């Protein structure tokens, strides 16, 4: 018989009723048996007696005799007990519940989940709350970039000195002017301009990154749950760019960590597997790394050549 998945709306063949997995998107669906016996009618339950006059209503007055408080709420995003299976139902990210949990706690809890448990988090997170995801990513990108800007501003002169010494060792094979121009661009005016523009650029970066990933997912038929799922993953995974605040190596660590979280996240959120997600994430990242690796490789090779050349190398000052 033919069945239709309620999530991806694709049809597939199956030979049984009951709980099963959609072969297209991986969602768990339930096919009711039309030949099964109708459920027994619910027994008529007598309503509880009205409280006596003066005891108050059910919401505001004193509780009736025999009333017990409700059970403890479900654990939500807390750690799973050993052997437990995570519930398939979607739930809001802690940051999306910031009004109830508090802004800081919501941010920190979401950051931990997206960075440390991306597979579980993105499988369960609700994809319809994209505004929270975008706000989270833009906020983290902004904070990380602000700290990075401050560090870059105060160490600009030392960086120019180091770059100059490295390029001198390369015997003029590398044009150091572009790098020096970039570093000299850290004037107070440009620092202020970048600090002001950072939140807008962060917002744009989240959307454009999600758009590029989504287009590449579409190429490999890897986006059954739509752009909202991709944007949610990119938004929450961009929280990792808070690590850019670490001096020197923060940007590289953040990029690698983001790539890992985004691959796992897109695979789970789109129910498409990590292969297609890796293609979507690594294609643009590979292009970026190609440039950076070419730079690092040539600088490293030239540095080695410089070490083998006659005479002691000039001091780097570090």
């Amino acid at each position, binding site marked *: 018989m033919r069945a239709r998945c309620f999530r991806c709306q694709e049809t597939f063949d199956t030979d049984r009723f009951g709980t099963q997995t959609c072969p297209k998107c991986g969602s768990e669906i339930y096919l009711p048996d039309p030949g099964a016996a109708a459920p027994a009618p619910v027994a008529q339950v007598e309503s509880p007696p009205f409280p006596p006059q003066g005891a108050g209503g059910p919401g505001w007055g004193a509780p009736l005799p025999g009333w017990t408080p409700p059970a403890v709420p479900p654990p939500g995003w807390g750690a799973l007990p050993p052997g437990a299976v995570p519930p398939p139902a979607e739930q809001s990210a802690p940051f999306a519940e910031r009004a109830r949990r508090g802004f800081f706690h919501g941010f920190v809890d979401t950051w931990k989940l997206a960075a440390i448990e991306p597979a579980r988090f993105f499988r369960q997170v609700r994809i319809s709350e994209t505004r929270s995801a975008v706000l989270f990513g833009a906020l983290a990108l902004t904070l990380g970039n602000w700290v990075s800007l401050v560090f870059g501003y105060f160490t600009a002169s030392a960086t120019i000195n180091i770059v100059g010494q490295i390029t001198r060792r390369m015997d003029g094979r590398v*044009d150091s002017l572009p790098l020096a121009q970039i570093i000299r661009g850290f004037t107070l005016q440009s620092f202020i301009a970048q600090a002001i523009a950072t939140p807008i650029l962060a917002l744009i970066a989240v*959307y454009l990154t999600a758009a590029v990933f989504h287009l590449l997912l579409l190429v490999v038929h890897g986006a059954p749950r739509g752009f909202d799922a991709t944007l949610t993953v990119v938004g929450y995974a961009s929280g990792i760019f808070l690590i850019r605040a670490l001096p020197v190596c923060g940007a590289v660590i953040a990029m690698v960590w983001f790539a890992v979280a985004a691959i796992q996240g897109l695979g789970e959120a789109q129910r498409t597997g990590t292969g297609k997600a890796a293609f979507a994430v690594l294609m643009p990242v590979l292009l970026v790394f190609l440039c950076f690796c070419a730079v690092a490789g040539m600088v490293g090779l030239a540095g080695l050549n410089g070490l083998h050349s006659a005479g002691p190398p000039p001091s780097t000052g570090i």
Partner: protein
Amino acid sequence: MAAQSPARVFGHAEVFAAIFALSFLAARLLPLLGLPYACPFRALTGLPCATCGMTHAFVYLAHGQLRAALAASPLGALLAGAAWLLAAADGVRLALGLPLPFPPPRAVRALAFAGLIALLANWAFLVIAHRT
């Protein structure tokens, strides 16, 4: 071609339209070509990277210099034109209260694939035309 309900007034399409409109304003009004930045890949290898010339293409096209924009980066000029047309079209759609048209998934997929090919072709053009 399916259409989205007009209930969602400021959705993803409007965000992208705003980004595209902002890119036109930046290319038209800001001195982007005067910024102290050069492509590190080109500085090291003498070859342009895949996205070299995009900023020049956006700025030239925003100032009406189509030939210069195409020479700087054909794909950049195409992207700029398409993005600004989309932004304008979305503005008109919002003003008229029309629903957002959705192209079929197969067309979007074909467009994305064509974009990949165009990026590679553009890179080849840049390497041949701008090799230093």
